[in-house]
């Protein structure tokens, strides 16, 4: 296929033979690794340096009022939100698979599940809803922390925690919007195998958001200070 024909079909091959949009998303993801490493570093450096509570893993008594602040992290809730985000990644790969295999005949004796696997709308909806569910868990967590006395200005833990998890939440929000736009295109004209790269780029971003959370969940929530 000539370069002009490729351009007519929406391909953007470089001299490497790779699509420049895919190279761009991987370069972007690489740069995002460094962004999140800096935020995680900041959190870890400040870990255990807060003068006043609430603290993440241990209770704290305010010497002036005598009020007891319990350990603030809610591991069961965060475990549930982690599960939701992991499942959203599964839904995302199934959405990409559905787009790539659109138009291919189903094998003889295919059941309802095999038909469901071919529905990109179903899996894009699932991914969006699970992503929104994760954001709902985060909104609940942030709200409960504020009610329990932990704000971004309260102590070093609050500053670094809200900054890191807030940045991650903003990335999830951007991902949900991106997936929502793909869903809108799917309803408007139907995503075709020729659109697989566009879905793949969104999927790579979405999975990156997931792997960042894998690191955050362990380093912030599970390892005590």
């Amino acid at each position, binding site marked *: *296929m000539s370069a002009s024909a*490729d351009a007519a079909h929406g*391909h953007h*091959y470089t*001299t*490497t*033979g*790779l*699509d420049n949009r*895919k*190279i761009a998303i*991987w*370069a972007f*993801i*690489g*740069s995002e*690794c*460094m962004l*999140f*490493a*800096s935020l*995680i*570093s900041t959190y*870890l*450096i400040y*870990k255990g340096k807060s003068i006043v509570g609430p603290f993440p893993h241990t209770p704290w008594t305010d010497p002036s009022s005598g009020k007891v602040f319990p350990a603030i992290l809610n*591991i069961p809730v965060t*475990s549930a939100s*982690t*599960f939701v985000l*992991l*499942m959203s*990644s*599964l839904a*995302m*790969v*199934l959405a*990409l*698979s559905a787009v*790539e295999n659109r138009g291919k005949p189903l094998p003889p004796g295919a059941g309802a599940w095999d038909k469901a*696997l071919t529905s990109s709308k179903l899996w894009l909806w699932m991914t969006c809803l699970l992503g929104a569910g994760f954001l709902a868990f985060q909104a609940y967590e942030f709200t409960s922390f504020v009610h329990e006395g932990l704000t971004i200005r309260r102590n070093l833990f609050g500053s670094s925690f809200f900054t890191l998890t807030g940045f991650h939440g903003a990335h999830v929000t951007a991902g949900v919007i991106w997936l929502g736009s793909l869903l809108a295109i799917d309803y408007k004209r139907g995503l075709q195998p020729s659109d697989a790269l566009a879905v793949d780029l969104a*999927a*790579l971003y979405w*999975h*990156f958001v*997931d*792997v960042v959370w*894998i*690191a955050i*969940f*362990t*380093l912030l929530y*599970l*390892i*005590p200070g």
Partner: protein
Amino acid sequence: MSQDNAHAEHYHPTWKEYKWVALILFLITVVEVWVYYIPELVASKAFVPGLLIMSAVKFAIVVMYYMHLKYDHKLFRSLFVGPLLVAILTLLGLLFLFSKIAIRLSGGG
């Protein structure tokens, strides 16, 4: 030629593989949370390294299978692994610099 090369790198796992990947990720997460609630394990020296290893395994599984980097072109691998190494080394460097981690030399004067 170059386009053929790009298409040759386009294998993605199947639903059955994705299902197993999701199950493994779920089980590792269950183990991570389970050990968090066992005080004897939390107090042990293996707790933090164990959690870091489990987290690294989950990270690698998602990157290799869901992000299909295992099957993709080596340039993509370089674009991801290179900055990731820089990020990890920066993180470790900062932790050393701020005395959050240290190398203890035994037998020194």
